[in-house]
C-alpha cells in the first residue's frame, strides 16, 4: 500500500511539472500586434444616441428593428435579436451614450474555445461565426470575457448572434453598416494601427474632452474595437478589471502539458507495472 501513496505523489509531481513547463513555453507574445487587423474606433464623446447604427445593423443582418431607445438609467441588453446596442449612462460629466458590440479581440477567447473553428478570427481582423461548422455547444459564450455571443434558445435551428464587423461587406471593399450610417462620425473604420494613432491624437489635442485611456488598446490582449470616453470607463459599464494578456493564454499552460503527459504517462505506467509485479505474490500471502 505504501507504493500507492508514493505513486500518487509522483503523479501529482509530474502533473505539476508539466503544468509548470507548459507555462514557460508561452507562445510568442502577440504575433497579432504585427498583423494589420481592421478595427473600429468608437468615440463616445461624439455619439448622440440616434440609433442609426442599430437600425443599419438590424437591416444589414436581417434582424428585427429596435423597438426601444436609449434612456439614462435604463440598461438595454445585447440579445439574440440584435448585434449592437446603444445605452445612455448618467456620469460625472452628464449623460453619455455608448455603443456595445463584439470587441473583435486580437486573440479572441471565443475562437480559442471553439472546437469546430466556427468562431474564427479572420486575417482581416473581424471575428466571424460560421453556421456550417458550429455545433451549438456555447463554449464560446462561457469563455468570452465580454459576454458577447448570444444564443437562440428558442429555435430548433439555433444560431449564435454576434457582430461580425460586417465581414461580407468588408470583403467586398465596403465598410461596416454602422460606420457608414453614423451621422456624428462617432464610428470610424480602419486598420487598428491607424485608429490607435488617431485616438491618441484626439486625446493629446483635446485633453479636457477625454479621459486618458483607450479602452481596447491592451484589454484582453488588445481588441479590434477601440473606445474613447469623456469619463473613466467603469462609469460607462465597462469591465475595467480584465487582464491585459489574452484570454487564450489562460488555458495554454494546460494545453501545452498534454503532449508531455501523453509521452510520459504510458512510460511511467509500464514502469510501475514492472516494478510492482511481485506485489502479486505478497497480496496472496495476505489473503
Amino acid at each position, binding site marked *: *500500500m505504501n507504493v*500507492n501513496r508514493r505513486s*500518487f*505523489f509522483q503523479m*501529482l509531481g509530474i*502533473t505539476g511539472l508539466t*503544468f509548470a513547463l507548459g507555462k514557460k513555453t508561452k507562445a510568442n507574445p502577440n504575433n497579432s500586434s504585427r498583423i494589420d487587423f481592421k478595427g473600429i474606433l468608437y468615440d463616445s464623446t461624439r455619439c448622440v444616441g440616434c440609433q442609426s447604427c442599430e437600425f443599419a445593423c438590424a437591416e444589414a443582418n436581417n434582424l428585427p428593428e429596435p423597438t426601444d431607445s436609449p434612456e439614462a438609467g435604463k440598461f438595454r*441588453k*445585447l440579445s439574440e435579436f440584435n448585434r449592437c446596442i446603444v445605452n445612455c449612462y448618467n456620469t460625472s460629466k452628464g449623460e453619455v451614450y455608448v455603443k456595445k458590440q463584439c470587441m473583435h479581440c486580437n486573440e479572441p477567447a471565443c*475562437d*480559442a*474555445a*471553439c*472546437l*469546430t473553428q*466556427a468562431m474564427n478570427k479572420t486575417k482581416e481582423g473581424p471575428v466571424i461565426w460560421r*453556421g456550417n461548422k*458550429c*455545433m*451549438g*455547444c*456555447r*463554449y464560446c*459564450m*462561457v*469563455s468570452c*470575457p465580454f*459576454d458577447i455571443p448570444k*444564443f*437562440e*434558445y*428558442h*429555435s*430548433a435551428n*439555433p444560431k449564435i448572434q454576434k457582430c461580425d464587423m460586417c465581414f461580407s461587406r468588408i470583403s467586398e471593399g465596403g465598410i461596416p453598416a454602422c460606420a457608414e450610417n453614423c451621422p456624428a462620425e462617432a464610428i470610424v473604420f480602419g486598420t487598428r494601427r491607424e485608429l490607435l494613432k488617431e485616438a491618441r491624437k484626439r486625446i493629446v489635442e483635446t485633453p479636457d474632452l477625454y479621459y486618458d485611456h483607450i479602452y481596447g488598446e491592451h484589454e484582453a490582449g488588445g481588441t479590434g474595437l477601440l473606445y474613447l470616453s469623456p469619463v473613466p470607463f467603469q462609469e460607462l459599464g465597462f469591465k475595467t*478589471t*480584465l*487582464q491585459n494578456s489574452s*484570454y487564450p493564454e*489562460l*488555458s495554454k*499552460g*494546460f*494545453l501545452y502539458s*498534454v503532449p508531455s*503527459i*501523453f509521452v510520459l*504517462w*504510458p512510460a511511467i*505506467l*509500464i514502469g*510501475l*507495472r514492472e516494478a*510492482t509485479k*511481485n*506485489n*502479486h505474490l505478497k*497480496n496472496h500471502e*495476505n*489473503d
Partner: protein
Amino acid sequence: MINTEYTLAKNSKGIKTWEFLKQEFKPKGKLLTPFNIISLPIMLLGLVLIIIRFWKGIGSITNLTQEVPWGLWIGFDVVTGVAFAGGAYVVTFMVYIMNLKKYESIVRVTVLNGFLAYVFYAGALLLDLGRPWNVINPIIGNSFGTSSVLFLVAWHFLLYMIAQLIEFSPAIAEWLGKKRAHKILSRMTIAAVIFGITLSTLHQSGLGALYLMAKDKIHPLWYSEFIPIMFFVSSIFAGLSMVIFEGSISFKVFSDQISEKAHQKHKGIIVGLTKICAVTMFAYFFLQVLVFVHSQNWHLLSTPMGFWFLIELLGFVFLPMLLFIYSYKNNSPLMAKIAAIVTMVGIIINRLNITVIGFRWDAVSHYYPSWMEIVVTLAVIFTELWIFRWIINRMPVLRESPLWAKENK
C-alpha cells in the same frame, strides 16, 4: 441476413447464438418493483421533454440564460458525472499497474459503471448541443479546433469509451461463449488500461481546464489556475467513493450473484479503498488551503459565498476525510459508506459551485435549473441504471467468470 448469422454463430454449448440472444433480450425478473414503478414514468416523461427540446429549442425546457449558457446538464451530468466515473481509471490503475490483485474482483463492475457513465452522461452533452448535426465536424477533421480545451475533452471522452469497452469486452465474450474472441480481447486489456489512465488524467483535469478562460465569471474563491489539478485529484476520491457506494448497493440488490467468499472479501476491499480516499483527500485539502492562502482572498470569507466555501471545504472534504480515517482504523465498512456519501455530496457541491452556483454569481438574473432539466437528468440516470441492471443480470460482472474463461488466460 438473419439466416446466415443463425447458422454461422454457434456458441460452445451448441445453442444457436441468435436464439440465445433472443432469449437474453427478454426481461428477467419482476416488472413491478418499486424501482421500476418510480423510474419508468420519469423516463417516459424525460423522453417527451427531449422531443420537445429538439422540436422547440433548448430554451423551451431549460432555464439557461445568455449569461449562464451551461447549466445543470453540463455542470451536473457531464462535469460531476465524469468525476464519479473516475473510479474506473483508479481501480484499473491499482489492479493492472500496481498489481494489487486484491481489488481484482471489483474491476469489472467498476469499468462497466464507468463506461455506462460516459455513454450516458457524456451523451447528455448531445442534448445540450444546439446544432448537434454538426457534432461530426470536430471528429471527421474538417474543422479541428485544436486550441480548444473542449476539443481535447470531447476526443478523450470518445477514445476513453473505446478503451473502456475493450477493458470490459472479455465479459461480453464470456456471456456469448466466444472463446477465441475472449482470448484476443483479454490480451488487449493492459494496453487499453494504460491508454485509458492516460486519457483519464487528461480529461478529468481537462474538465476543469474548460473553465480557465472564464476567469472573471467564476467566483474568486473557486477560480484558480489550479482548477485542472484540483479536478484531477478530486476525481480519484470521487470515483472511489462512488465505487464504495455503488458496491454496497449492488451487493444488496444483486446478492444472488455473489458468493459468500466474495462478500467477505468485499469488506476488506472497502476498507482498503478508504485509505486511498483519505490520503488523496488530505492532499486535496492541503492543495485547496495552499491555493486559498496564495490567492489572498481572506476578505471574501466573511461573505455568504465565503461561508459556503468553508462549508464545502470543512464539511464535505475535511470531515469525510476524518470519517475515512476512522473507518480505516476501526475496520468499519459502515463508516466508509457514510464517508463515501458525504464525499459524493461534497463533489456535487464543488462541481456545481464552479459550473453553476459560482458562475456569474454576480449576474442580475440567476440561473436555476427548471424542473424539466431535472427530470431529463433523472431520466438519463435511470436509463443508465436499467442498462446496468440488464447487463449485470446477464454477463459475468459481479458473478464469477465461467471456468473456461479462467483457463483461457
